């Protein structure tokens, strides 16, 4: 890795954008339109009060002030923000009272995101966010160039990422091509994901709060519900159905808003490029070197509908920044697998059959699922025997549910070491196949509780610098754990095996 010579920056081969950016300059003047609109929206509650006050007091100046203030604020923001890219650093100055100067070396740039809200899009602008993998999550510390013309932002992105990659072969790589493109039929997967249901339920919860606030439920009485010709027995399933339909519609809405027009593209400079969004469009770029692996997740609902979703394990992006590591939204499994093969640059880790973990690992799945389920089941039986109403026996349903869960978990469990990748799969409610490139494995952890040791099992954990920071192979036989770890990093593990134990 060669350090760029900072004194002669920008280097002669730097693109036109980087050279143009060397002087302090403002963002696009069209932001003068965006800021006031945004400020007006932010000050909307205050403005409403102003308007009400005007009708009460009759003063015309008040009204003027209410509009002038947001506009002045927007103007100030525009005038006090400037940036430059010089001497190998990106610098951003902003703030009127608190002057902020943010600065980062160009070769630290890991991701470049373009986000365009509807107002931005109307004016042909975009917000360029530079990600350096910093641990800070404060908005103050983000390098956002809010308001650049779209094509200029794209050119700048290309050059920033090009400078940060040190490979020379990059420029000669294959032409740009789409790997995954959005299909409107995918929205059928939206209600089947946990997040879709959560979004729907949250919206519904907010609505019921509102109804509660206006006293809807107090006025609701069973007599009123007694619609002639429709019995209560029929009404309850109908209400449940309506609830399900409503949540489905809301989650579909959420899916469409975030993922409409989704496209995963392989760019010429060997980066991965994601575009999506219905109103606000987002363009995310991931550097290939930083993609340590992928996670193929199948929540139960998605799995039953033969769907899945894909996210990348990105070095330097941790859990809190997972938004920029999603690779494919809930989509058909075949599409997701194809994308995974492309991103990993090899089909083997996705398709290879997994090694099962044996009967002892299976027994652990059964005991761990059944024992917790046994407690409420036994409690219900005892309660009924003590004279409680017999419908409590419905609590026994936990047992078959737990059994199904255990059986599915046993089936999910598996691992493999193939084509330079560690593959681990586990889980039932959310089944995940994690694939991590061996080059990105930092070290190995072997965890085993007393129970696990008695069964000769261990949980093998590959630590890495991205995503969840680790990929765990659950309850693998001890000697197989050592074999996998040793096969992946032979010199590292080899020196600690043998002789006594």
């Amino acid at each position, binding site marked *: *890795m060669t350090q760029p010579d900072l004194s002669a920056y920008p280097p002669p081969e730097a693109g036109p954008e980087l050279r143009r950016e060397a002087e302090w300059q403002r963002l696009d003047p069209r932001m003068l339109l965006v800021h006031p609109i945004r400020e007006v929206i932010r000050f909307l509650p205050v403005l409403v009060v102003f308007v009400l006050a005007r009708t009460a007091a009759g003063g015309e100046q008040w009204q003027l002030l209410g509009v002038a203030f947001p506009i002045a604020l927007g103007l100030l923001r525009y005038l006090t923000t400037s940036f430059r890219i010089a001497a190998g650093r990106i610098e951003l100055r902003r703030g009127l009272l608190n002057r902020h100067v943010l600065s980062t070396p160009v070769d630290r740039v890991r991701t470049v995101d373009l986000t365009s809200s509807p107002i931005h899009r109307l004016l042909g602008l975009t917000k360029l966010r530079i990600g350096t993998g910093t641990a800070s999550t404060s908005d103050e510390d983000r390098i956002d160039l809010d308001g650049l013309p779209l094509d200029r932002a794209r050119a700048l992105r290309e050059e920033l990422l090009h400078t940060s990659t040190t490979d020379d072969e990059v420029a000669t790589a294959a032409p740009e091509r789409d790997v995954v493109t959005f299909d409107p039929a995918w929205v059928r997967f939206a209600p089947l994901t946990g997040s879709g249901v959560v979004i729907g339920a949250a919206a519904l919860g907010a609505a019921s709060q509102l109804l509660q606030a206006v006293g809807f439920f107090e006025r609701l009485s069973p007599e009123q519900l007694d619609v002639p010709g429709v019995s209560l027995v029929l009404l309850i399933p109908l209400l449940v159905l309506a609830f399900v339909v409503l949540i489905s519609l809301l989650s579909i809405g959420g899916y469409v808003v975030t993922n409409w027009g989704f496209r995963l593209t392989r760019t010429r400079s060997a980066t991965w490029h994601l575009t999506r969004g219905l109103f606000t469009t987002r363009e995310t770029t991931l550097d290939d070197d930083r993609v340590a692996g992928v996670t193929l997740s199948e929540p139960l609902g998605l799995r039953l509908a033969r769907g899945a979703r894909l996210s990348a394990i990105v*070095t330097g992006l*941790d859990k809190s920044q997972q938004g920029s590591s999603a690779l494919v939204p809930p989509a058909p499994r075949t599409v997701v697998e194809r994308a995974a093969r492309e991103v990993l640059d090899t089909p083997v880790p996705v398709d290879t059959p997994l090694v099962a973990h044996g009967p002892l690992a299976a027994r652990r799945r059964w005991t761990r699922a059944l024992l917790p389920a046994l407690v409420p089941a036994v409690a219900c039986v005892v309660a009924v025997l003590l004279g409680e109403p017999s419908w409590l026996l419905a609590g026994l349903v936990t047992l078959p549910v737990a059994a199904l869960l255990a059986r599915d978990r046993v089936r999910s469990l598996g691992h493999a070491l193939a084509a330079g990748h560690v593959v681990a799969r586990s889980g039932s409610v959310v089944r995940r196949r994690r694939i991590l490139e061996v080059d990105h494995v*930092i*070290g*190995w*952890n*072997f*965890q*085993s*509780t*007393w129970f696990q*040791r008695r069964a000769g099992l261990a949980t093998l*954990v590959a*630590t*890495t*610098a991205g995503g*969840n*920071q*680790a990929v765990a192979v659950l309850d693998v036989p*001890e*000697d197989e754990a*050592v*074999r996998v*770890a*040793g*096969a992946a*990093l032979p*010199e*590292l*593990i080899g*020196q*600690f*095996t*043998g*002789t*006594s*134990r």
Partner: protein
Amino acid sequence: MDSPPALREPSQRVSPRARLMWTVEALAQAVVLAIVPVVLVGPVDVLDIPWWAWVLLGLVLAAYVAVVPRWRYLVHRWEVTDTAVYTQTGWWTRERRIAPMSRIQTVDHVEGALSRLFGLATVTVTTASAAGALAIAGLDKDVARRLVDELTIKADAVEGDAT
């Protein structure tokens, strides 16, 4: 490799004084745990505990203080080679961690209030992964010092940028 040899334990034990330190620690935890029901039954008087529960609690806490520090001492081991650090920690859950020298980012030397009483120290080795920090607790202070120096030199000598 048909049947690979099993992973052996790391070669070095921690200082025997660590047993005493962990006993004091366990004793403190047991006292705190015992105070809660004593206060609830005594001054606050919201709880009534039968005599056999007291006996049971006492036995469990006594066993915890007597057994766990020794168990911990038997498990805690470490080893440093030219290319790797290998630790084994825990008691009920045993955790073995192996990290290559080339991936070491920082080496911390910490002497807590309690460990200073016993002349002990903890050496923590971190890597770029938040899940991969290796901590060796209960080291003799001088051993820990030497270990930090050794690790620093070795980590420096290995090629790579630790990511």
